[in-house]
């Protein structure tokens, strides 16, 4: 179908309402510029101020998002349909901003100890978070690409932030090259979708696909849809597009790994759901097989590979791959069933608090100039740092999906959605692979409660600082609250789902 020759609209400029709807992104963008200027003029001994400024701006953006949650109501679009102002994007914003704020809190101490406390760090974190929020609200293929590039380019620099460390440099290069490939796939897919439907606006694409459905779906649209999916699969590190994940997670400074392992996944899944479940529902039967297949492979490869790891960061990287597989189940369910999207949102929030907690333990335990990375470093942790070990144990249980933790209900809703829509094999596969995952999570937990051998050199754990204590307390509380008071977040996720734009398909149940 060739694009209709669109009449060039009269020159229109965005209104104040558009700008106000974009307030969270604008706050972070302005803070980014401010931080760059501050970094240039502040003496290097005052770097921690930058963390304070970054935290305040994240808090302000969070406030703006909360206001947006109530103000957006049933949702509307900004900038002539290119951007969504709905509860869904505000919900995702909240997860992203809380995650970034927790990372900013633990960063100064960690960066100082590693000797890489440069001011650009906070600016890049903010830029990346801005990109993620743009991705979460994007309703136009070009805006999606813009968001992905903004978040990725900042992360390429951040993962190579430890300039003297070869591992870190390797991570940055690997991430850059593979990320470039992923962007290529994504753009090519977008080009094909645009070429066949004649639109870049998600709402228009959805309508065009609905119209085409009555006759027949063009194979090139399907190729485009698959290519777009591959681009996202790279970002959420789903098998077989996961190969960069362990190396990058291990090589990047731990605070950066904490940040990217959680927020990239949240933002990419947010966009994935908006594009696939809500824009492409009329070609669902075609992409459902691919998404399910990738989910099955991710759960298998992630969990099996995690079994053999001896590095904590690599183990959590493979566990992250497996978790991406579980979340993909929520994407693969029938778009007409709301529980799939709710499950994805719940899982993302649960994964965010849990994974930040687990990585924060590695961050706060890092020694001078090196990361605590091997399993043996954790041996006997419970006798020296009982609270940290208990928190880590809780995070591992949550990642393994035990009640009453956040991770259990994340899995529960996703699997329930799969069973409800007749994808029972997918749910069974998820439960089986979760059982496998318990082995490697508990192995680490047990290690912490083992007495170290007498002659063994004890790992030189650093003292747990106030900032680290705050983060660990917050993530522990989050993991428990999301595991016990389930309906707090379930209701919010449900409200976020009900106003999700673009509303092309009439969803029911």
């Amino acid at each position, binding site marked *: 179908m060739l694009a209709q020759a669109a009449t060039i609209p009269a020159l229109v400029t965005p209104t104040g309402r558009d700008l106000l709807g974009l307030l969270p992104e604008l706050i972070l963008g302005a803070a980014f510029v401010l931080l760059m200027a501050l*970094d*240039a003029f502040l003496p290097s001994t005052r770097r921690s101020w930058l963390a304070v400024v970054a935290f305040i701006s994240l808090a302000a953006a969070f406030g703006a998002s909360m206001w947006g949650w109530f103000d957006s109501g049933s949702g509307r679009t900004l900038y002539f349909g290119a951007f969504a102002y709905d509860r869904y994007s505000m919900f995702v914003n909240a997860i992203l901003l809380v995650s970034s704020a927790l990372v900013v809190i633990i960063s100064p101490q960690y960066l100082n100890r590693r000797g890489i406390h440069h001011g650009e760090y906070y600016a890049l974190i903010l830029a990346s978070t801005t990109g993620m929020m743009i991705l979460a609200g994007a309703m136009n293929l070009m805006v999606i690409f813009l968001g992905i590039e903004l978040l990725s380019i900042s992360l390429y620099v951040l993962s190579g932030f430890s300039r003297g460390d070869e591992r870190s440099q390797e991570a940055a290069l690997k991430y850059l090259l593979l990320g470039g490939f992923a962007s290529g796939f994504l753009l090519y897919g977008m080009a094909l979708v645009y070429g066949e439907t004649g639109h870049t606006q998600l709402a228009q694409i959805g309508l065009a696909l609905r119209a085409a459905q009555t006759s027949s779906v*063009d194979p090139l649209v399907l190729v485009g849809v698959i290519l777009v999916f591959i681009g996202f699969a790279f970002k959420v590190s789903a098998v077989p597009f996961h190969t960069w994940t362990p190396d990058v997670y291990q090589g990047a400074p731990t605070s950066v790994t904490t940040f990217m392992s959680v927020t990239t996944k949240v933002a990419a899944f947010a966009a994935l759901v908006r594009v696939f479940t809500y824009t492409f529902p009329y070609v669902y039967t075609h992409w459902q097989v691919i998404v399910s297949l990738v989910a099955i492979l991710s759960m298998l490869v992630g969990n099996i590979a995690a079994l053999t790891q001896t590095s904590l960061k690599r183990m959590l990287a493979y566990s992250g791959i497996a978790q991406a597989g579980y979340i993909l189940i929520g994407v693969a369910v029938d778009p007409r069933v709301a529980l799939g999207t709710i499950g994805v949102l719940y899982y993302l929030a649960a994964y965010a608090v849990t994974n930040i907690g687990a990585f924060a333990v590695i961050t706060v335990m890092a020694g001078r100039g090196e990361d605590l990375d091997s399993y043996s470093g954790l041996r006997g942790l419970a006798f020296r740092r009982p609270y940290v070990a208990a928190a880590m144990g809780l995070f591992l249980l949550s990642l393994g999906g035990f009640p009453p933790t956040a991770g259990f209900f994340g899995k529960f809703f996703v699997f329930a959605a799969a069973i409800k829509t007749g994808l029972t094999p997918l749910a069974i596969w998820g439960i089986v692979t979760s059982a496998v995952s318990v082995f490697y999570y508990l192995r680490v937990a047990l290690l912490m409660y083992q007495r170290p051998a007498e002659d063994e050199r004890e790992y030189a754990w650093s003292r747990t600082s106030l900032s680290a204590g705050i983060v660990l307390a917050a993530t522990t509380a989050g993991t428990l609250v999301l595991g016990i008071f389930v309906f707090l977040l379930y209701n919010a996720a449900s409200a976020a789902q009900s106003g999700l734009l673009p509303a092309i398909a009439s969803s029911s149940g």
Partner: protein
Amino acid sequence: MLSDYAPILVFLVVVLGFAVGAQVASNALGPRRPSAAKELPYESGIVPRESARRRFSVSFYVTAMLFIIFDVESIFLFPWATIVRQLKIFGIVEIAIFIGTLLVGLLYVWRKGALRWD
């Protein structure tokens, strides 16, 4: 429709055929008389004095990169200038923010010492 792409396919075949054909033909038909002068790297007709593979200051790279960044960004001023009248006050504010951001970038570069040459 898929058939819309047929001209592209024809174009692809012709381009590939021409590229491969020209290479093969010049290899098969052209005479070869190598000499020492022909083996020299071409430097606009000047006889090379030393190896081109030597180290040079990283400042060249930084300067070139900065030039590209600011150059590309200044290109945005041209489309803006063509419609500045229609954009009214909005356009003025928008471009002021844009240039202000660039200015912060320049300040940053200057303070970090990327403009110093030594």
